């Protein structure tokens, strides 16, 4: 087990007290930031904005493992959607996609453990993990081909998937390493 994955003392897929509390904190933060929703407009798009808090999701997955990542994304998005007034289950494929992104980000440290020898390597790996997790995880929004049959493949691809992976990848690539570097000294201080 690598150092960044030390949030799970009993194995990658165990649901320990630590996993529960970290996931609850992650999901609550994700929901609160969703509620505050201060998107940063992207000049080349009218409808798309960068949501800085997306990086929280990939950070929680990367730092505390795939279970925390999935729960942070899935529960955080469900609760956040309800807080904003969108409705908890109105866009459930998106909640699932957020969860999948967190899960993939959490798998990365397991695969890349040997490469994460120092803080810089860890930060770079976190950025890569955030981008890959976004590209892979958000493939699940294509479930809407079944649940929203008014949208064809091209509409989901051009209207949803491509814009969202661009803006979320930007957020993940910047925010995830910042949080990893900020968390690392505290983690050592706490002896985790």
């Amino acid at each position, binding site marked *: 087990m690598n150092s960044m994955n030390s949030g799970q003392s009993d194995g990658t897929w165990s649901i320990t007290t630590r996993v529960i509390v970290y996931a609850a904190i992650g999901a609550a933060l994700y929901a*609160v930031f969703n509620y505050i929703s201060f998107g940063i407009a992207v000049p080349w798009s009218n409808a798309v904005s960068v949501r800085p808090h997306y990086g929280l999701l990939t950070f929680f997955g990367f730092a505390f493992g795939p279970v925390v990542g999935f729960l942070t994304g899935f529960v955080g998005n469900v609760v956040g959607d309800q807080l904003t007034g969108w409705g908890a289950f109105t866009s459930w494929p998106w909640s699932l996609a957020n969860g999948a992104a967190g899960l993939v980000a959490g798998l990365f440290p397991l695969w890349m453990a040997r490469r994460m020898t120092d803080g810089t390597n860890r930060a770079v790996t976190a950025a890569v993990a955030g981008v890959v997790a976004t590209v892979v995880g958000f493939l699940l929004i294509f479930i809407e081909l079944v649940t929203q049959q008014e949208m064809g493949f091209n509409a989901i691809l051009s209207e949803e998937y491509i814009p969202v992976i661009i803006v979320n990848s930007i957020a993940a690539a910047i925010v995830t390493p910042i949080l990893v570097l900020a968390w690392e000294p505290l983690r050592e201080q706490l002896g985790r």
Partner: protein
Amino acid sequence: MRAAFPYLGRGSWLSRRDPRVLLLAALVFVTAVTQLRDSRQLAIVLALGLAYYATARIPWRTVRPQWIYLLAVISFFAFFNSLITGGRTGTFSGVATHVLVTLPPFGTEISAEGLSLMLSQVLRYAAIAAVGFPIAYAVAPGDLGVALRRLGVGDRIAVMVELTVRFIPTLAAEFGETIDAQRVRGYNPTARGGGPITRLRRMAPIFVPVTVGSIAGAEDTIDAMDLRGFGVGRRTWSRELRFGTVDRLVVAAFVAFLGLATFLNLSGGSQHYLLPFLVSA
């Protein structure tokens, strides 16, 4: 900053139901309504969904902004979708469309089929929201975890969801305090200028302390739970839930609706409906 789920439906007929009813109803309803395409059927379903919503007696004034936001976003989203597809999707795939208006400069078409699809999409989203809202406002605080547990979700996940809802007001308050503290140090959270990446990095003084501080604070919660032996043995819940006859009838009604929707879907009885007045115009 007020971020929480106020118990707005307190005392209503729906709030007196077993909280499992509200969760099951929403899950069954979402599964059913995604199988329907005909806007006439979806309009009836929306009316039924709103009738269910009304039994939660959620004050309109309190949730009005949320409904306006929801309807505005889904209408814009569905309209944009109809422009992209041109109405050539779903039941209307491969058929000649009735173009009503062609928009410059790219010749984007607004068709009768596109608007018909848009209506189906808006009705479906609104119906799902109507049945989903009471989960947030008509389930008593503290009942969500036990309801999830009694539905078969593991103890730990049920506790995790309960904790998430409980953490929200605290974290929202911490967020507000952090912004105030950074303002005192000269930070301007509303500063504009620079590209998206520069502005994203400018958010670090807010994100980092709130996130790292919350994780550090979580250690106290973890220690408290461990000291109380959380997860060591079989967990019990002090709150007893009673699934009464009325609860069973409500769930049965939703399951019957799911059966009907599945039948309509499989038998081809729910195709997208082309609004006739758009074609004849």
